[in-house]
């Protein structure tokens, strides 16, 4: 039986802590975001907030809606009302194209946030997830400044840095993330780059996949399929 199935069995039995032995060195996690599949329903944002107790007004993940008019690619109109949690207002029927772009921590291999943390409270795990030790974080916000993607914030009550953990408490038990699990169209997929059987390998070979802001050279592991050039 595959590890995920064994884990799921343990979860169903109400004993997720007894999930099969998880080897850090066997995994290298990332996320595939299939832009054309996203319908902007906000399920992922709501699921993330419920799963991770995200404070109001802050976001571990959010969805943006781009409206790009012809010949005006560099000046798109972007909205993300309340992080897209409750969906989006009806689009106007005019020129140009509309599309949704889910955003989250890119779990960068060479993450600038990790580089600048003065005490090493934020770190990259051996299985490729950027995490924060909140019992160690000073709350200086240098990492918030260093993140090119705006994924971090200072938790208003805990007074420490906070962000997407890629649902580390779930993926180490063989489950997928809350956002992936609740996406109705499969626009978000948790991927394990060290697993040779993961379909991501075939997907990366056959699709025009990009990362956000490649010029930042952060080694981002949120892979976007069908990403429009206007997306920032």
């Amino acid at each position: 039986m595959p590890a995920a199935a064994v884990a799921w069995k343990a979860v169903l039995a109400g004993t997720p802590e007894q999930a099969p032995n998880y080897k850090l060195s066997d995994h290298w996690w990332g996320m595939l975001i299939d832009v054309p599949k996203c319908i902007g329903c906000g399920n992922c944002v709501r699921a993330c907030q419920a799963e991770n107790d995200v404070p109001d007004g802050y976001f571990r993940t959010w969805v943006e809606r781009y409206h790009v008019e012809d010949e005006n690619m560099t000046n798109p109109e972007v909205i993300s009302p309340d992080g897209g949690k409750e969906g989006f207002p009806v689009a106007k029927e005019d020129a140009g194209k509309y599309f949704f772009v889910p955003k989250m921590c890119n779990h960068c291999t060479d993450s600038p946030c990790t580089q600048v943390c003065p005490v090493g409270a934020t770190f990259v795990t051996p299985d490729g997830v950027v995490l924060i030790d909140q019992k160690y974080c000073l709350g200086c916000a240098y990492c918030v400044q260093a993140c090119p993607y705006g994924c971090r914030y200072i938790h208003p009550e805990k007074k420490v840095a906070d962000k997407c953990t890629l649902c580390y408490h779930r993926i180490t038990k063989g489950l997928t993330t809350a956002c992936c699990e609740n996406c109705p169209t499969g626009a978000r997929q948790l991927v394990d780059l060290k697993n040779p059987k993961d379909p991501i390998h075939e997907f990366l070979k056959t699709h025009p996949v990009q990362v956000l802001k490649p010029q930042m050279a952060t080694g981002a592991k949120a892979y976007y399929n069908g990403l429009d050039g206007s997306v920032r």
Partner: protein
Amino acid sequence: MMCDLAMFLGEQVKVMNGVEGFMYPNEIGLQWSVLIVLYPFITGLVAGAFILASLERVFRVEAVKPTYRLALLTALSFLIVAPLPLQLHLGHPERSPEMYFTPHSTSAMAMFGYVYLWYLMAVLVFEIWLDYRRDIVLLSQSTKGPVQWIYKVMTLGSDNISPRSLHIDEKVGWIVTLIGIPSAFLLHGYVGFIFGSIKANPWWSSPLMPVVFIFSAMVSGIAGVMLIYMAMTKLRGQKIDIRCVDTIAMYLFYIFIIDFSLEMLDLIHRIYEADESFRSLNFMVHTKLYVPHIVIQILLGTLTPLILLFITQLVKLPEQVRKRMYVTAGSLALVGIFAMRWNVVIGGQLFSKSFLGYTTYKMALVTKEGSLVAAGLTVLPLFILWALVKLLPPWTAEHVRQATTGD
């Protein structure tokens, strides 16, 4: 319908919250407040004051001698306060010692504690002690009661003030000042590097940032000490040494020119290169940052004092007029350098990293990071300086001599 209404209201709130265009949702509130503006402003004053002191000690510019000790005490007063804004800003200030015990080697900020301690203890306090040792020993002999004990402790048991011993003090002090010059550059260049090394923020990310910070630090420190010297001399009813302030003003003018040239180089480079961030930055400079950047920093805080100082270099004006011009130029220079720190720290957070929108900074009044606390921290070094001047009068040499010889 309800959903649409809620979203409409949500958009209204965003507009009311001072957001224009699109910000990433976590970017709307600023992370670094006016306290982080104060941090480079205060450390700049420290570094600049020390450089002024080194003019006399290392480069033998005798004319500025009346300000030598005052410059050192000013640097110490401001250095004592420098970490306070950072401490107050931290979410968990009680964890800050971790920066000393478990520093993260790749972090620019992690070095703060070491750079600070090095500069405080190995450079500034040591140099002041060496320079004042003779006075401290004499004061420990001429005073009575608890004050005497304070001076006795301050001698650290070293009460030999023979000519040979003082000669050694002089030699060691010279070496410490020599080490102090690159240390002052390190202290403030490092502060500039904290901002300049953030590639995510195009307003900050520039290799020129540490250099600009160093020269602007010298401008603020020299202007600050000049003003403090003039004010203190006036308060003491003494005559201002015009040759001294003339010389300081000359150095201030030349260093100001270098500082302004570097800032203009940075600006021209950005305008000419016009990369993807330029539209955002250009918009900001013409709107939200127009008053603090163009009006206060450049016109009022840089060009006006430069013109005033230029006139004093060009025309031989009466002494009284020169003094007034120096006071005006020095005060405006301080305003300009504060505005520069403001524009870097606050300005760098007003635009979205998506380059598609802008937010607004609202400074609270009585919160932990509010304007009252900031004002308190700005004047606190002056109180410390007052206490230090009482304890270690910069002009003590004559007084001590008089006290000990009974003249």
